[in-house]
């Protein structure tokens, strides 16, 4: 299966957008070689703003650019983009609903070596709690490209959470991407896994292993955390014996919370998998960290068996 790096795809897509629309401007806080905003800098230096290591100013500066008709994309690591600049996003951008795009790179545990300071485990929850904000988490390079283009078309504040690692292509290439829509990645009839980001590929792996056990597992990419299409989620859960959510994010306020809110009282068994109220830490590899935090295909597999009542069968 082809793998692509979402940062790489994002950086190239910004250049495409910049070519198509001169209103696109890009701001960076000295991480351009990592967020890959460097491609835009090479292509359109006049519309590129190196803001130095000053995320607060970068974010409010972007608000100002949007107020004179530009479509700014701000870039940093997710924990700084969403955390350090939280108040700037809330006050100057979300209250008036300005057309600013905030891109949090190296999210989750994907910046494995740098440890807890650089690993965003709560960024999506913070962004999701702000009125007027849209929160997106792509599952692969294909979706990253479509999503980046959709963000530019949409008028209003958007936060996109990007992984640092290469990701296998899963999103249907021919499918039109629409903000808000959950996407069926793999059909199944016994249980459903609602996942986003890197956990979509883990869910597909789990579904493959489960099919060898005679269990048919549906995998849904819930790449829009907000706004939630409740009707679409309910439809995708119809006839399922159980549901699992999988996210590389704290369980507090992320995808698990979204799904639990939608299905409360439904009677469908649900297990939420994610980071259990802990910070990240350094490790020698990303895989090692994902295992430490219980974010593997094996964990999804066992949770699916649990919710559909096939444990030990």
């Amino acid at each position, binding site marked *: 299966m082809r793998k692509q790096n979402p940062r790489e795809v994002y950086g190239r897509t910004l250049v495409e957008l910049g070519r198509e629309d001169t209103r696109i*401007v890009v701001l960076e806080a000295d991480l351009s070689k990592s967020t890959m905003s460097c491609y835009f800098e090479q292509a359109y230096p*006049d*519309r590129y*703003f190196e*803001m*130095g290591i*000053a995320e*607060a*100013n970068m*974010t*409010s*500066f*972007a*608000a*100002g*650019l*949007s*107020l*004179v*008709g*530009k479509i*700014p994309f701000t870039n940093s690591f997710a924990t700084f983009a969403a955390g350090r600049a939280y*108040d*700037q996003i*809330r*006050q*100057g951008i979300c*209250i*008036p*609903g300005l057309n600013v795009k905030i891109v949090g790179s190296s999210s989750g545990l994907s910046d494995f070596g740098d440890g807890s300071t650089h690993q965003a485990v709560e960024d999506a929850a913070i962004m999701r709690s702000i009125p007027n904000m849209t929160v997106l988490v792509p599952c692969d390079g294909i979706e990253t490209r479509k999503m980046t283009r959709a963000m530019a078309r949409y008028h209003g504040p958007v936060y996109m959470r990007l992984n640092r690692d290469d990701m296998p292509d899963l999103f249907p290439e021919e499918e039109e991407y629409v903000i808000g829509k959950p996407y069926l990645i793999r059909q199944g009839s016994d249980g459903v896994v609602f996942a986003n980001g890197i956990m979509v590929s883990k869910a597909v792996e789990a579904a493959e292993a489960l099919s060898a056990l005679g269990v048919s597992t549906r995998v849904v990419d819930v790449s829009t955390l907000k706004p939630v299409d409740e009707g679409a989620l309910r439809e995708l859960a119809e006839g399922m014996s159980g549901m699992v959510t999988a996210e590389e994010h704290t369980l507090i306020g992320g995808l698990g919370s979204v799904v639990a809110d939608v299905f409360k009282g439904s009677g469908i068994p649900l297990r939420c998998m994610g980071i259990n109220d802990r910070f990240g830490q350094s490790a020698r590899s990303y895989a090692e960290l994902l295992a430490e935090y219980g974010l593997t295909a094996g964990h999804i597999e066992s949770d699916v068996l649990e919710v559909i009542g096939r444990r030990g069968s």
Partner: protein
Amino acid sequence: MGTRDVGSLERTARRLRLHIVHMMGVGQKGHLGGSCSMAEVVTALYFSKMRHDPANPTWEGRDRFLLSKGHAALVQYAALAESGYFPSELLPTTKALGSLLQGHPDMKLTPGVEANTGSLGQGLSIACGMAAGLRLDGRANRVYCIVGDGEMAEGQIWEAAMAASFYKLDNLVGILDRNGLMATGPIIDRFDTNPVAEKWRAFGWEVLEVDGHSFPAILEALDRVDGMTGKPKMIIARTVKGCGISFAEGVAAFHNGVLDAEQYERARGELGEGKR
């Protein structure tokens, strides 16, 4: 372009102060001090210097005005009403539930307000972004942004100061309301942000210092900075917090204070209510 007649501007500034007192009302908290300290500067901008069209608040050719110290919204609301952005009958609804006039500037609700400010330190960054965007489009609009001397403690002010000089935003004019008082007392005792002129110069800005209650001085400074290119400009306006209302002048308690019935009448009297 408005008037250069100092007498007329002085009368307008007095009317703005009266509006501020009306918005304060009796027994309600309001940011009287830092609104009154900016009455002359705001009058000079709205009624003399700035290109703007109250009948068309989103006119592309307008200069932009941002109140980074958003708590002084009362003085901006007074100027917007006097300019004709909305009827002055709306002013007494300030801070009432459902009013167009919020406690801090809200661009979605109030005609003529350009951005949401009030979380201190952010307005200057927004002004920088506007100035950069306008320049990118080759537009000649100027961006004026009022900051407070208490606000100088916010680190983001200095991030913005560096960005403005790095990007040579000479279409940006900052005005520092140097009234010397923060919410809880004198800046020199509580948290000293001095020396201000040296700091702004060190951050690469052109700096002018003026008497912030003298129209000839303010107008001269606003004109002078037009001719300065290659750098952002900061006009340090030496002001008195609560200026124009004798018992509030230099009194920190009127940063966000309350007028009792007697003070309300006294303030109106001092401002010549009924003597236009």
